[in-house]
Every structure is written in C-alpha cells, then in structure tokens.
C-alpha cells in the first residue's frame, strides 16, 4: 500500500488520479517477466568433458604453471591467463566444500523435493569445486568436509551431460577437517 509509506518529499508530490478511475481498484503492480532462450554450444574442452560423462568419466585440466587442476576444464588457467591442454581424469569421489539447504522449489524441476542440498563438490585431485546435489542422508547430516561419491544414472540412461550424476552420497569415510575443506585447501598449499 503506497499510502503506508512516508512520502520522499520534496522529490514527490501527490499525483492527481483522473476522476474517471478514482472509484475503481487501482493497479499497484504488473508482471514483467524476462526470458531469454538461446542456443548453447560448449567450447571444445567442455564438449570433451560432456562426452566423457557418457562413459562415467570426469575430466579436468591441469595448469602448466603450478599443476592446479580445474574442473570443468575450460582450456585456460584463469589466474594466469595461460592456455591449458593437459587433460586429467578425476575420480568420482571427493568432499563437500560448502553447501546450502534450499527450501524453495526450482520452477520446472518437479523431480526435486524440497528442502534439497546443493554443494560445492571438491573431487580428489581437483583444486576447485563444482556444483552438485547431495542426497542419500538426512539434510541435517551434511557438513563441510563430508566425503561423498557420485551416484550415476543407469547405463542405458547415460548421455553427454553432467546430469548423468544424479547426486552425491556420503561414503562414510572420515571427514576432511573443515579448515582444510574446499577452497580453504588453497591456503594450505602456499
């Protein structure tokens, strides 16, 4: 209700609403959705990365500067601006670097029950995390440093997509100490 807000005078003055619409319910808001549909063609390293998913393989790129491993492979080390062409295969195991419990549904994702847990998954051997869902345990049990492994789709459903990994489930292994989990490990390397 506009009336309940103090007027930011003197920038604003009372607007004279035309008499012909003074007695009808005023419009106070409008829907103005923004939508962009576009054709996405991944870069060559990401093409290779996505195709490898169909063989249940996860690829990364190793920096020629310091050996840091990036996943997904983007073809460059963004810290140094150098090209990368060394491909490394990564295991489908790692730990939770950070996570978030979300209580709001994603439009169009009716398969995803709320609340769900999304997390930065740090694969063993990778120096950065990538996003995934964590399930297979109570949401309350998810914690920074928790060891997880990929749960893949059935063989016949595999495609050239990261969606082949349905979610990440706890392995039951001892957790990584929180101050060494996720990107915090970068500090320890130096």
């Amino acid at each position, binding site marked *: 209700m*506009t009336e309940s807000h103090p007027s930011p005078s003197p*920038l*604003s*003055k*009372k*607007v*004279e*609403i*035309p008499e*012909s*619409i003074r007695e*009808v*319910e*005023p*419009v*106070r*808001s*409008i*829907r*103005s*959705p*923004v*939508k*962009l*549909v*576009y*054709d*996405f*063609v*991944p870069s*060559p390293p990401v*093409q*290779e990365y*996505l*195709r490898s998913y169909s063989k249940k393989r996860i690829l990364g790129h190793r920096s020629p500067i310091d050996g840091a491993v990036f996943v997904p492979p983007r073809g460059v080390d963004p810290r140094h601006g150098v090209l990368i062409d060394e491909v490394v295969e990564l295991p489908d195991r790692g730990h939770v670097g950070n996570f978030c419990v979300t209580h709001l549904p994603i*439009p169009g994702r009716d398969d995803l029950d709320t609340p769900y847990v999304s997390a930065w998954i740090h694969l063993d051997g990778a120096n950065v995390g990538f996003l995934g869902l964590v399930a297979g345990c109570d949401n309350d049990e998810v914690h920074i440093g928790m060891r997880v492994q990929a749960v893949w789709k059935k063989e016949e459903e595999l495609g*050239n997509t990261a969606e082949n990994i349905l979610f990440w489930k706890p392995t039951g292994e001892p957790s990584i100490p929180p101050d060494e989990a996720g990107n915090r490990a970068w500090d320890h390397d130096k």
Partner: protein
Amino acid sequence: MSETEEPLRAELTVEYPFTRTTGDVIGAFMTGLREKRIFGIKRQDGGVLVPPLEYDPVSSEPLTEMLEVSQSGVVDTWTWVDPPRPQSPWNVPHALALIRLDGADTSMLHAVLVDSPSDMSTGMRVTAIWEEERVGHIADLTGFVKEVEESDS
C-alpha cells in the same frame, strides 16, 4: 573432440518472473488501460507525455497532473515485423510504430495491424483496439488499426 562428431548444443532458457510495483503514475496508466482509457501526464510547459512519466525528462520536476488523451493518433515512424515475435499481439506480420495520440506531445511504441508494409506510412491515422479481458497491463491494449475515415462530413 573428434572431427567426425557434430558439436554438442543445447537450447537453454534464462527466465525471471518479475513482478514490479508501479507507483501512482504508472499505476494510474495501467488502471486506465484496464478501463479502456489512455492517460498521459502534463508537463509544466503544458506538453503531455504519453505514456506518463513520474518526472519531467528535462527539468526533473515531479509531475502530478494526469489527463486522458484520445485513443486515435498519428504514426510518427514505424517498422515491419515479419515473422511476428512471441510477444506480438497477432500471429501474423505487423508493424511496430511510434504513435502520437491526439492530445499527446510524445509518441508511444505499440503494434499496428495492417495487411502489408505498403499499407503503412508515416502520418497515417490509427486507432486503438482492446482485449476483451483486461488486467491492467500494456497488453490490454491489443494494438492499433487504421482509423476508419468518417463518411463525408
């Protein structure tokens, strides 16, 4: 990537379902559209802005005096839209025009339905047509069509 393979591609969609509050001036304009009326707002020099703005675009003075303008006016300039866009009011090619309604000093962007570009010209007169069901949105105004010339007067 092997050279025999077609590149992967995917159709992706980015979408934000915004609802925005209108404030008094745009709110009155939208309320007017729902009631099949078009409102503008008067500048200090007496000029009329349609659609209305909350502040004078030159002096930055707050504007408050809203008034109704005609539903007919003149095409100031136009372009042809073929094929029609998803948000077009019609499923056939049409014009988009800047339309200066009688009583207004500025022109408003909206769609004009004619058969072909040869039916469009700068200076032609057009008149508004409305949706049956109106909710208080610019799309309540379906668009404009050629004004039917009054029989000899």
